[in-house]
């Protein structure tokens, strides 16, 4: 047990250094010692209003589109997999690439009466980027409803009553979680407002730091956003209690009844087209001839390999770290401490990317510990702080699905918790590890807000290169690079999904065994 204790002590030590310290610095230390900076002045209230308008508008429109899309996919028995792929594409494409694409189309959009460089424009673009999160969460909820419950309701009532009285209440936790996630993602989004030149908090934070080098003001500015988003996270935690909203197993037991008439596709088809296909079509058209691709490839291949390298290392670190944090939360009964660790690991979700970057610079640019500041380690630390909530949420959901009796029966035999983790728990969590890796890899690969601030000298990632090229006005190169970027994500995710499916087939008996 001593080795196990030492191991968990090291994990907790890393947790304090990499998560607790930056969170403490951002939400307590700087706001506490920075009274002279008035966040309640008129200009900042305007920024809060803009940020909230974007977040609420995006969440509501994503909710409507996401829920309808989920039902559409659920109803379409035959093409389910295809539609799910359509739904995943907007997640693969980072929001700033969506913004680049729609910037190209702004003239046409104006004819419809929508000014893209406005709050409504930001809501439009962010909705097309984020509705998929709600659609996939709600779809996962629908998949996991016991078909017997639906059939029992259908025996005594019609489809619409069943939909409103049985199905919607059952999937409400998924809808609610999706809404909260989209709200948080859109309130802290940096890429879209930056491309559309909108005044919102994440942009102001960036300006305070990069233009005025007012580090304290930049961090203090994050406080209202963090406060409200943490409040939302708490609401979500209280509502969800111990339920899990990410379920990878489940699958269809029997053919499910349909709930919407087939002409719903007239609503969903334009959404799929605008969010999944149009970006790629526009980028192909705007990238010019093939020589541009060759030019971009030769000038950016180092950055591409660097991005793949740094995202892979970060995703692996985050996953391993998240697993042990989730294990502490789910399996070791320390009462209140478990809740504190969970909350601390979820709070970074509410911190704007630019604030994470500033915080990394402040913490790691100190004597003695500056070894991380001038190399890629600072990026990995930044990504760990940014994406640890995703890792922890996925791993906690995974651990909830592992029957504790399986571990307890091993505890009667084996003395080492680490051996039980390796032999029993980890093999059962493989699907969650795969999905977690792909998601965190995609998020890290497309990360811009933090990277642009903490990139060490001589290093450049693809999102930062795209960001710089936009400011030079090299739009053909930007388009070609965006396409290569999307292609790389699709290839890497494809390889992992292929491996996952091969493994999944072998693993699918897990939930059939009892």
């Amino acid at each position, binding site marked *: *047990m001593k080795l196990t204790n030492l191991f968990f002590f090291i994990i907790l030590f890393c947790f304090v250094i990499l998560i607790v310290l930056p969170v403490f610095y951002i939400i307590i230390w700087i706001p506490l010692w920075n009274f002279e900076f008035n966040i309640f002045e008129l200009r900042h209230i305007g920024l809060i209003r803009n940020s909230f308008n974007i977040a609420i508008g995006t969440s509501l429109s994503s909710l409507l589109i996401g829920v309808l899309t989920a039902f559409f996919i659920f109803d379409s028995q035959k093409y389910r997999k295809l539609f799910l792929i359509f739904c995943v594409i907007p997640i693969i494409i980072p929001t700033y690439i969506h913004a680049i694409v729609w910037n190209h189309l702004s003239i046409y959009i104006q004819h419809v009466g929508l000014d893209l460089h406005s709050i409504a424009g930001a809501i439009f673009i962010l909705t097309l980027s984020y509705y998929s999160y709600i659609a996939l969460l709600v779809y996962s909820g629908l998949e996991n409803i016991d078909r017997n419950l639906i059939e029992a309701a259908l025996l005594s009532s019609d489809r619409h009553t069943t939909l409103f009285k049985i199905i919607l209440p059952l999937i409400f936790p998924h809808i609610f979680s999706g809404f909260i996630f989209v709200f948080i993602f859109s309130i802290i989004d940096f890429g879209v407002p930056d491309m559309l030149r909108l005044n919102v908090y994440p942009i102001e934070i960036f300006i305070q730091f990069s233009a005025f080098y007012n580090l304290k003001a930049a961090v203090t500015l994050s406080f209202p956003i963090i406060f409200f988003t943490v409040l939302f996270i708490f609401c979500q935690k209280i509502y969800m209690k111990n339920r899990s909203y990410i379920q990878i197993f489940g699958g269809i037991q029997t053919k499910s009844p349909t709930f919407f008439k087939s002409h719903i596709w007239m609503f969903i088809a334009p959404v799929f087209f605008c969010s999944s296909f149009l970006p790629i079509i526009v980028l192909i058209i705007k990238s010019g001839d093939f020589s541009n691709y060759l030019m971009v490839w030769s000038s950016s291949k180092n950055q591409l390999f660097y991005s793949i390298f740094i995202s892979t290392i970060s995703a692996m670190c985050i996953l391993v770290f998240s697993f042990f944090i989730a294990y502490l939360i789910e399996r070791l009964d320390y009462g209140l401490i478990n809740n504190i660790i969970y909350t601390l690991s979820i709070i970074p979700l509410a911190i704007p990317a630019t604030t994470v970057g500033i915080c990394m610079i402040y913490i790691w640019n100190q004597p003695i510990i500056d070894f991380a500041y001038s190399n890629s380690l600072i990026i990995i630390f930044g990504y760990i702080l940014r994406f640890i909530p995703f890792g922890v949420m996925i791993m906690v959901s995974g651990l909830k699905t592992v*029957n504790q*009796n*399986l571990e*307890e*029966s*091993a*505890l*009667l*035999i*084996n*003395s080492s918790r680490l*051996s039980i983790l390796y*032999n*029993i728990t980890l*093999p*059962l969590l493989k699907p969650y590890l795969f999905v977690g890796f792909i998601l965190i890899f995609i998020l890290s690969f497309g990360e811009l807000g933090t990277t642009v601030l903490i990139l060490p000298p001589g290093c450049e990632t693809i999102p930062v290169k795209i960001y710089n090229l936009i400011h030079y006005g090299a739009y053909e190169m930007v388009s070609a690079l965006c396409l290569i970027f999307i292609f790389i994500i699709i290839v890497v995710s494809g390889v992992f999904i292929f491996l996952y499916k091969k493994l999944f087939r072998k*693993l699918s*008996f*897990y939930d*059939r*065994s*009892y």
Partner: protein
Amino acid sequence: MIEVINIAKYFGKNEILKDISLNISNSEIIVLSGPSGCGKTTLLRMIAGFEKPNKGKIFINNREVSTSNYLIEPHKRQLSMIFQDLALWPHMTVEKHIIFTLKAQKLPKETIKSKTDKILNSIKLDGYNRNYPFQLSGGEKQRLAIARALASNARYILMDEPFSSLDNILKKELYNLVIKLKQQYNMGILYVTHNIDEMYEISDKVILMKNGKIIQSGILDELIRNPINEFVQQILKRTL
């Protein structure tokens, strides 16, 4: 011998177990019964070392293993547990279940191989070495759970309604296996069930619980002849 002395357990304000005392000797099958929620599984989990008692002590072979502030780890208690859902590891084959269990005892490779074959043979699972739990029938799964308990070198087995989902013919076959564990391997068994037929088939002694308390204990025939109250009469009458 397992000695449970004046055990009490609270979850928050709920008193789950109240002053429970019982003994389990080697070569003895004790059947524990009572309505759902009366604390049977909690008692088993405390004997196994998964829960700490709030009051009282547990001794195994004269060694203090559980008190309110002291708990010996489950694997040091020389006991095994068969859970209601069996808790077979779905990613391991039949053979790997046994190998994993034997490896924990740090036995040499050759011994592990020969012991695995011997155990699977004795439990009639030879030929299923490479099967996963989902490829086994209900009865085979139960036998695998018992084989794992045998491999763990346990002197006592705690069984939490292990055969509740099986048909009567299979149950009969498995009762014989449980009796064999007692007679051939000198094991002490604490067996939780609601089923009076199971009490008849395997019990040396029956303990009846209600609301976290032992209501009456003794040989089954005695309990039927002299029930202490209406509850005992009802519980023993139900399926007669």
